[in-house]
């Protein structure tokens, strides 16, 4: 039987708050839907200016068709 198992969390809970990275400063030009962002290493890269993988405004975002309380989410 499994009753001797230990389930320990090391990061979740208060330590996990704010663990996700957010935000960027949009700048001009990598083509449609992309913007140049300088990385700390100095090398610029292109990233999306809006949601989705690479920034495509796919039809599921924010329509409330799935996810709790009208918020889209990718799990299921």
């Amino acid at each position, binding site marked *: 039987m499994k*009753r001797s198992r230990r389930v320990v969390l090391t990061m*979740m809970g208060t330590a*996990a708050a704010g663990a996700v990275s957010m935000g960027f400063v949009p700048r001009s030009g990598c083509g449609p839907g992309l913007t140049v*962002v300088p990385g700390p290493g100095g090398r610029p890269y292109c*990233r999306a200016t809006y949601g989705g993988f*690479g920034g495509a405004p796919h039809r599921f975002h924010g329509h409330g068709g799935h996810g709790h309380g009208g918020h889209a989410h*990718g799990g299921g």
Partner: protein
Amino acid sequence: MQRLVCTERCDWRSTAEQCGFDFHTIDGERYWDERAYYAFTLDQIEGQIEEPTAEIDAMCLELVAYAIEDEHTLRRLKIPDAFWPLISESWHRDDASLYGRLDLAFDGRGPAKLLEYNADTPTSIFETAVFQWTWLEQAIERQIIPSRADQFNSIHERLIEAWKKLGEGRHLHLAGMTESTEDAGTLAYLEDTAGQAGLATTSIDIEDIGWRDDGGFVDLDDREIELVFKLYPWEWMFRDAFGERLIKAPTRWIEPPWKAILSNKGILALLWEMFPDHPNLLPAYFEDDPNAARLGASFVRKPLYSREGANIALIREGVTLVEQEGPYGEEGFVRQALAPLPNFSGQYPVLGSWLIDHTACGLSIREDENPITANTSRFLPHAIL
């Protein structure tokens, strides 16, 4: 299998919040609900849940091996041909799967029936692996449930072991739609287990993934994304702006691209074709297959791509009894034989049988007053008595 009413712990909300389970109540409604639990015998768990789960997983792998080599099947699944090489390469490279969840109809008597396979982005793993176990320990301690109670649950330790195998010393990124509390919670939990396996990790929102001009995906610190867990469906990845860059990048994805085949509800029809009359499968056909008529006027209609029950319709004798709204269905539908869920005190439970690194090792239960499990369905704990 029984549904047993019990006393809830008076402090369960604060216990949940302390361990980071902050989506226990959603829009004022209970998601975690411990006013009752489902009880199983050990024989039921081992013989009717664990063994069939392993067998279905093996059948699914056989299906992928077949589909990869068969363009007709990939077309039936409406997988864009631009991504066939990505999928095929990940399969032939043996890119590993971390996890998946089979949704089963089970009443404790007849064989469990596969309703669908959440192969790509299953959630509810934290509450299954951790909070459900905390409930068991505290419920025994407080004499809410018998002291002999156990639980089908070794998900947590198997995740840690799986990460050790998958990591191979690489830095792990975890990406998803982090504005969703539920998805952020799932990512935080998986990151926790990866950390316990010794992996260095970085969380990132899926939209914050960048593309370096010399090729390759990077994070906000311009670090190359070598190995990434993504809680974001493959079919969305394929359609999004960076989809076309997937094939050019050396990034390894968890779940791997070959899981795009198994997360498609078309596999329900393909499994039935390959393994007809298997006791754990329900008859299922693509809607445009003339054989779908064999189901008669009673069936469940499911979009090839759908999550949380969206756009699923339950049709009996030609009459739509229940239909969930949603944005899916553009790619087509499958029809699956109607397998009415068992009714326990007016509640319809669906069992989630978890696979970690292809090992069946845990159980979750969602119940609803509605016979289609949706994102409002409540999570109830279980025990082996």
